[in-house]
């Protein structure tokens, strides 16, 4: 409690990854027994009734059981296996036009009723500061319904031993081909979320996600140089079948420089390539700074999409609700209202959704009981819509919420979070090799690296994991010390070509942070391999004392 609770795990060279941890370690046998729906409904009704009686005009209750299993390995050792469970109840109310929220881990009728009454008291204390009352877009109560992530293999039933052996096999594979050190991790999440509101909804959802990142480090002690290559895996809203990769899940990168994955992942194969590529990076040619045509793989581009389109079109940012932390947005309402703001070139089309199977953002309903949807954000390069919650929909003339309300725990208040935001594939048949063919001076970038963007989403700088020089239509050698800097609107207007549907796949962010207090969320972004012309590339090599 002193600071936020973190799980400290070894990560990329030079540091550790601090993973926010919610809750409690549990034994495996307990994982499979969800709380009875009737118990949750009865508890929810206690809160709804207590809040209404105390004067709330609206109340929603979220009863959550959040299960995580994290496995961390270092070289040939399993460092840590952490099972966590966190259960509790969060009650949000509207009273006198203002919100109040109280959460408790004590799941008794008395404690929950008390939480509801306290939430009303908080709302009343804040109502005097409210310049305008909260307006909720209507949502039809759906009665008692359920939704679950589709999967065929439940991560909770796979023995820990098998998982640990898979990670150690990956570590050994990378160390056999050139890595000096390896760290690998497996994050598995199950969110059992029950939502009830005074609108008449009782929604029981079972959400599953997983991700297995790794870092291969190659060290040359004589020169004192070290380089890393992270895994090219994408986190997924799937079960453990994610690790059963078949030949049909494998994708040949442009020029055959490495193997990529779609719909399943072979971590051992990727680690084997990573060891070799990390070693090659030690002697890769340092990039000459200047303008290049960039060819960006989906494993890289998802993060650029996330930062420059996903966050920029969050309506709460546009309106100023995130001004104190994440920031605001250059994609202001007047630009949207003009109906002609060219966010990108004519071939740039972005769709938001909560429905794509296997994505991190797929759910049946959001944390306000709004069903998952799909809608256009950017059409033919023009900004046409945002991402909204119930209390924001009226501001952009929408009659219903987009279903973008989420909380990362029973103890966190729900607010606007990003759905999947994906770049649509090109209409013309085009493979990555064909796309590269007419690039004279370019760089092919794969994997997520360093990323940074300003608080209004204008100026960004991105690195990557693998950089290959493209000369006269051919993918040639690895380059080192590459990062590109651009302005969001100029960048997307420099988009000149993209591969077709066959090459479209999703990357994703497993721990996307936003809000105060900070909350995490998971979201996917799809694209095909895409080309951007004349982008500014800098050289990041530095010497220190």
């Amino acid at each position, binding site marked *: 409690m002193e600071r936020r609770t973190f799980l400290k795990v070894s990560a990329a060279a030079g*540091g550790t990854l601090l993973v926010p941890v919610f809750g409690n370690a549990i034994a495996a046998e307990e994982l499979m027994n969800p709380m009875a729906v009737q118990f949750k409904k009865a508890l929810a009704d206690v809160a709804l009734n207590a809040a209404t009686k105390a004067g709330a005009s609206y109340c929603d209750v979220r009863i959550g059981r959040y299960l995580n299993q994290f496995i961390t390995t270092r070289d040939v050792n399993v460092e840590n296996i952490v099972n966590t469970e966190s259960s509790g109840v969060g009650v949000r109310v509207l009273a006198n036009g203002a919100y109040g929220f109280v959460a408790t881990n004590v799941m008794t009728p008395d404690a929950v009723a008390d939480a509801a009454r306290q939430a009303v008291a908080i709302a009343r204390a804040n109502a005097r500061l409210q310049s305008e009352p909260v307006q909720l877009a209507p949502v039809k109560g759906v009665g008692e319904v359920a939704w679950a992530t589709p999967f065929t293999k439940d991560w909770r039933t796979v023995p820990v031993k098998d998982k640990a052996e898979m990670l150690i096999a990956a570590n050994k594979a990378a160390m056999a081909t050139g890595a000096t050190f390896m760290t690998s991790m497996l994050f598995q999440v199950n969110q059992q979320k029950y939502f009830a509101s005074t609108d008449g909804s009782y929604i029981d959802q079972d959400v599953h996600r997983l991700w297995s990142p790794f870092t291969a480090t190659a060290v040359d002690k004589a020169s004192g140089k070290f380089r890393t290559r992270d895994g090219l895996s994408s986190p997924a809203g799937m079960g453990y079948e994610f690790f059963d990769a078949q030949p049909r899940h494998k994708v040949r990168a442009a020029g055959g420089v490495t193997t990529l994955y779609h719909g399943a992942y072979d971590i051992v194969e990727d680690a084997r390539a990573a060891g070799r590529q990390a070693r090659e990076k030690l002697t890769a040619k340092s990039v000459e700074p200047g303008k290049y045509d960039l060819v960006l793989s989906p494993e890289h581009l998802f993060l650029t999409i996330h930062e420059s389109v996903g966050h920029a079109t969050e309506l709460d940012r546009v309106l100023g609700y995130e*001004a104190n932390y994440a920031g605001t947005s250059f994609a202001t309402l007047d630009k949207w209202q003009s109906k002609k703001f060219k966010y990108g070139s004519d071939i740039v089309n972005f769709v938001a959704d909560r429905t794509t199977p296997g994505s991190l953002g797929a759910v049946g309903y959001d944390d306000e009981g709004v069903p998952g949807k799909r809608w256009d954000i950017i059409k033919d390069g023009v900004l046409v819509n945002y991402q909204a919650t119930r209390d924001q929909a009226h501001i952009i003339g929408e009659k219903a919420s987009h279903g973008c309300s989420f909380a990362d725990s029973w103890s966190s208040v729900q607010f606007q979070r990003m759905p999947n935001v994906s770049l649509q594939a090109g209409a013309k048949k085009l493979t990555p090799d064909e796309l590269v063919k007419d690039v004279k001076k370019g760089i092919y970038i794969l994997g997520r690296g360093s990323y940074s963007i300003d608080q209004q989403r204008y*100026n960004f700088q991105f690195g990557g994991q693998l950089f290959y020089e493209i000369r006269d239509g051919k993918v040639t050698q690895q380059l080192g010390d590459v990062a590109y800097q651009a302005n969001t609107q100029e960048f997307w207007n420099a988009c000149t070509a993209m591969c077709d549907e066959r090459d479209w796949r999703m990357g994703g962010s497993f721990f996307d942070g936003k809000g105060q207090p900070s909350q995490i969320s998971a979201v996917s972004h799809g694209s095909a391999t895409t080309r951007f012309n004349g982008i500014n590339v800098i050289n990041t090599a530095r010497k220190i004392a």
Partner: protein
Amino acid sequence: MKLLDKDEAKRISDKVMALTKADECRVSISGARRGNVRYARNSVSTAGLVEDTQLSVAVAFGRRQGTAQVNEFDDRSLEKAVRRAEEVARLAPENPEFMPAIGKQAFLPTPTYNANADAFSPDFRAEMAFQSIDAARRKGLVAAGFFSDSTGFECIANSNGVFGYQELASLNFTVTTRTEDGRGSGWVNRAAYDPKSFDARAASDIAIEKALRSVEAKALEPGRYTVVLEPSASSDMLNFMFGAFDARQADEGRSFLAKKGGGNRLGDRLFDEKVNVWADPWDADAPVLPWEQQSMMARRKTDLIRHGQVASLDYDRYWAQKTGKPASADHGNIIMGGGSKSTEQLIAETKKGILVTRMWYIRMVDPQSLLLTGLTRDGTFYIENGQIRHPIKNFRFNESPVVMLNNIDDLGKSMLIGDANSRFRMMIPAMRVRDFNFTSLSDAV
């Protein structure tokens, strides 16, 4: 449930340890009541209260360890937690790097709790928000801010006789104040242990002044400039650096502190000789718990950088044993020594330079040189002949904190940094730094 006092926490931890059949047992109990109010567009957007208490039990049979946690405290639940932990331990793979529970430690209490914390209430938080919003409204500005407080306790115990219990309370506050047309923006952050020492209106006035002064920003060419970094501007960069003071990473050749040919750079002069940094859990301005939660090791006052030399590296218990060095607890705080000058004095003594209020979205570009990138935000000004001349557009930087701390011109007075998401409590001075590397302009305000 109500927060546990020392006797209740001791009784529960003793009971848990008596239940286990394992070779050893470690217990930690954590309880907190966290309140917050968040506002934007001059209105409260969310406000909440979260209460949670957790018990964690870790047991080991040889080198196999298991952990279980519950948030119920009746006898049956305690027994259930112990049996679950034992079961996980029996199934876990043996960890060759496992370190047995630490022996008895002496924990000298630190002043992390203040009795005035009783003041935290929904009305108190609403009043903080009101004062901040009201100050902004009076100047025709728009405020977005966040006030949070936490009151609670931490308890640790193990089967070798370690026991610690301490209460904590603190608050954090940040506000961003913007002009209605979005052309000016100012920000401030504050942290405190005693609610009576915190003044929301006075803090908000600083953000207001910066917002009003930052409209009509002019563009300067990117390049190397002398900068005056306010304490909150450099703290995030330093957070990255001190998070990477790990001896093992350095010894293994994968850190900026690795030595060419092998070994680490302990004792090397890597920074300007004016740089002195230490950790001290008893520091009166930035106290932290006298132990590290995970290892249960007592924290000590430790020099990290002395007169520009690397004075110590972080050794976890395993790496310390392997290399024959003393182990060190994770530092809860980072204190950088400064002088007595105010930020205004540093500005007054600057011929040409740039005042930076805040750095944003800082990420590692290259761990080899600790090159970081990020942007200035919420109050960036051009200084000429000791005066702030005009606001300037924000810059992106690509700079290493190692280089930054080599180019120190002068240091101001250290102050407590308010950042609830930081790994460390930090006391950092304002600093004037030569040749800070700005690489591009941003249109963001």
